[in-house]
């Protein structure tokens, strides 16, 4: 079965990833050292590591704070997105009325919307999660809808001939059919929700990776800036990788169709 494959492949894939990162880090270190690039232009990875080691608490608490904001926004976006997709697929009128509004909402730059959210919710963790949510729910809605509409009419007819109710049709056929599409959106949403949380933090806060980024920029602290960038990359990549792993376990039948 493919799901067990996915799991047994995991340590190897992770190892290869870590190895790749280590090699790039070494080359980076060597190049900057060999070409004598000043650290305010391009710092060495070892300098970033020592910057983190000097104030580990700031990075750790920033990482955790941004993680929580991202996860809350992501979860809300995923649930609302899937719910919207289901509702829109069942009620065409509703879709025709509400969907254009969603599209308009998504054309508003997240920065403009962020200002509004901060005025409404203040500089709270909730405000950041709301912005993460705002970036997340739309792709999930669209993909859920597309996935639900891709149901094979013959399969639907077969289930009807068994006397399936609308609920059974949804649970037994439509949602599983849409699952691959939904996961594509969830992977995208995992990255977008992190963007939302970091942008949210730029409107003002005291902890978070976004805050570290902003502080480093104002202080022209190149080493700190790179350290914060790498911390964000670590968070984003881990989250994305986790989603991809869950996808491979849940949508096992897709790989060897």
């Amino acid at each position, binding site marked *: *079965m493919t799901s067990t494959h996915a799991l047994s492949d995991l340590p190897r894939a992770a190892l290869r990833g870590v190895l790749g990162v280590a090699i790039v880090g070494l080359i980076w270190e060597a190049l900057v050292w060999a070409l004598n690039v000043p650290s305010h232009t391009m710092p060495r990875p070892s300098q970033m590591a020592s910057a983190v080691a000097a104030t580990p608490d700031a990075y750790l608490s920033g990482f955790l704070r941004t993680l929580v904001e991202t996860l809350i926004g992501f979860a809300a976006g995923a649930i609302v997105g899937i719910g919207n997709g289901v509702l829109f697929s069942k009620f065409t009128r509703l879709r025709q009325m509400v969907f254009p509004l969603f599209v308009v909402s998504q054309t508003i730059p997240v920065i403009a919307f962020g200002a509004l959210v901060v005025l409404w919710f203040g500089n709270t963790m909730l405000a950041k999660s709301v912005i993460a949510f705002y970036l997340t729910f739309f792709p999930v809605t669209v993909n859920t809808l597309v996935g639900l509409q891709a149901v094979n009419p013959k399969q639907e*007819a077969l289930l*009807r*001939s*068994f*006397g399936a*109710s609308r609920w059974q049709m949804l649970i*037994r056929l439509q949602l599983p059919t849409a699952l691959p599409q939904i996961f594509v959106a969830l992977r995208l949403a995992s990255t977008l929700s992190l963007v939302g949380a970091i942008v949210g933090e730029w409107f003002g806060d005291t902890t978070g990776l976004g805050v570290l980024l902003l502080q480093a920029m104002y202080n022209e602290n190149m080493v700190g800036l790179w350290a914060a960038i790498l911390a964000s990359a670590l968070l984003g990549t881990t989250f994305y990788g986790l989603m991809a792993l869950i996808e491979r376990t849940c949508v096992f*039948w897709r790989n060897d169709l």
Partner: protein
Amino acid sequence: MSLPLKNVPTADHQNTSPQVAPASTLLDLGGVSKTFGNVQALSGLNARIGTGEFVTVVGPSGCGKSTLFNIVAGLEEPDDGAGIQFRGQSCKARDLLGNVSFMPQQDLLLPWRTVIDNAILAIEMEGMPKAEARALALKMLPEFGLAGFEKQYPNQLSGGMRQRVALMRTFLFKRDLMLLDEPFGALDALTRTMMQRWLLDVWQKHNRTILFITHDVDEAIFLGDRVLVVTARPGKIKLELPVNLPRPRGAELVTSPEFISLKRTLLEAIEEESMKSFQATTGH
């Protein structure tokens, strides 16, 4: 929509003597037509299916056989003016929904369900608890040649096995009337012969009425109590040929003079219709 036909107990009957006229009519179709846009698929089709009968249906490709099944399964309404009677009661096609066990032309197995869970799909939706349904299906697996495969997924099965899973799903959904649309279409000749004999066994054991579409004339005669030949589109019944061959039927039957003579009659009728159908679609 209430289903007036539900909960009627399964009829008890004998399949052993096809020569005797069936005790009662299970399904009676009168003047069934079906038009899709400007394509007329069926035109005034009449047919009567007796309780416990095994009726095979042959006809050129595109003549409306699957359309007929969709109507009998309750998935499509025929054009106005059709008369459908099920167990002696007049009804609409949609009243048959859920009262007929239907195996479509493709197996339509759900790729995320294992063999056993695909087999119990219908009875699970009827409300049988999953554990109970699985236990029931597990006992039937050997009979369908699927013993040991319960945990496999459809993409791990051969075409023949997939069709057996679909057949099992159809058998588990216990209804008096079974519609099988080319169930052995994807099988090689050898497997097909095995499956035909097996189906006759299962049919006799489970006392069902079967309406069976096929393109294979040998198969139609070998299995059926009667063969219905459908005309080129728009489809109606061209010929109704009783097959008075003794049961149980063995492999040697296929070479008997009676079988050959039936086959000749059928082939003539089908060829005539196939030519019409071919000329209509190629413009020659």
